[in-house]
């Protein structure tokens, strides 16, 4: 069993926020996301009908900010464990509508690093949390991503 104390990584990164980019939300990006995932709700795909909705215009589907999270460059935590890495899981907490013309500032922090033993042996999970804040200062969404590291053998 690997314990927390035995995992070698840069612990000074834990909980420290990093500004990792500003993302422009365009109508084209919202429509590309919505149409490719088969959305039919007019608030996501029909600019004119969306004007009559409670949102007063086009908004992005609830998991939209996930695509920006995938583009973020995170600091290397210097983990000395394993030689394989996988995207193990993701969570999104939706806070406020995202609209065309929004500018989302992203801040990310290393949330936790912990060991686990599964059927494929020892693993270490690296968890990052990223918040997206719009130009009005409202949080649009928080995304938590888990990456698992393990050895080939």
């Amino acid at each position, binding site marked *: 069993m690997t314990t927390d104390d035995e995992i070698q990584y840069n612990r000074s990164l834990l909980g420290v926020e990093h500004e990792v980019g500003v993302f422009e939300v365009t109508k*084209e*990006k919202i429509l*590309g*996301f919505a*149409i*490719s*995932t*088969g*959305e039919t*709700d007019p608030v996501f795909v029909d600019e004119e009908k969306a004007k009559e909705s409670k949102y007063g215009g086009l908004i992005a*589907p*609830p*998991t939209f900010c*996930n*695509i920006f*999270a*995938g*583009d973020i460059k995170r600091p290397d935590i210097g983990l000395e464990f394993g030689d394989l890495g*996988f*995207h*193990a*899981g*993701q*969570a*999104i*907490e*939706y806070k406020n509508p995202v609209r065309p013309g929004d500018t989302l500032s992203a801040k990310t922090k290393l949330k936790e690093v912990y060991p686990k033993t599964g059927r494929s042996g020892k693993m270490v999970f690296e968890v990052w949390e990223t918040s997206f804040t719009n130009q009005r200062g409202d949080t649009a969404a928080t995304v*938590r991503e888990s990456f698992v590291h393990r050895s080939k053998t």
Partner: protein
Amino acid sequence: MTSDTRYYEDVDVGDDIGPIERAINHGQVVEFVKAWTNDTKPTRFNDPETAANEGLAGPIVPGVMTMAFISRLLTEWAPGVSLNTLDVVFRQLVLHDVVHTLSGIVTDKGMIEGRSEVQCDVFLADPEGTRLIIGKAILELPSRES
């Protein structure tokens, strides 16, 4: 509210969500990746050869795209619902053009700080019934009492 609005009061713990069947086709993934990355360079998501070189059985669906389809399962079940949280585990890869089953079950409901919330487990399974993605979601449904 429309006639197909699903109200908080109409939902019980144990209710099924779906199932619905969806094949995420190659063209959809190509369009999604374009919206995501703004380019068309070959990756494991959009190019069979790159996927094969990485030892995959075929190009795969990005995890974040599968989350969008799970989100649709929930919004089709309860149109107009607010999806507050979706938390998933990617257990196995999802391949293009395979008919997958998306489903869920209501596990809890309650009034949380004035919000009429419903919690559920969600799944994406392959044709053999293997659950490739599992997760939990928290939804806010309209209430007849508000």
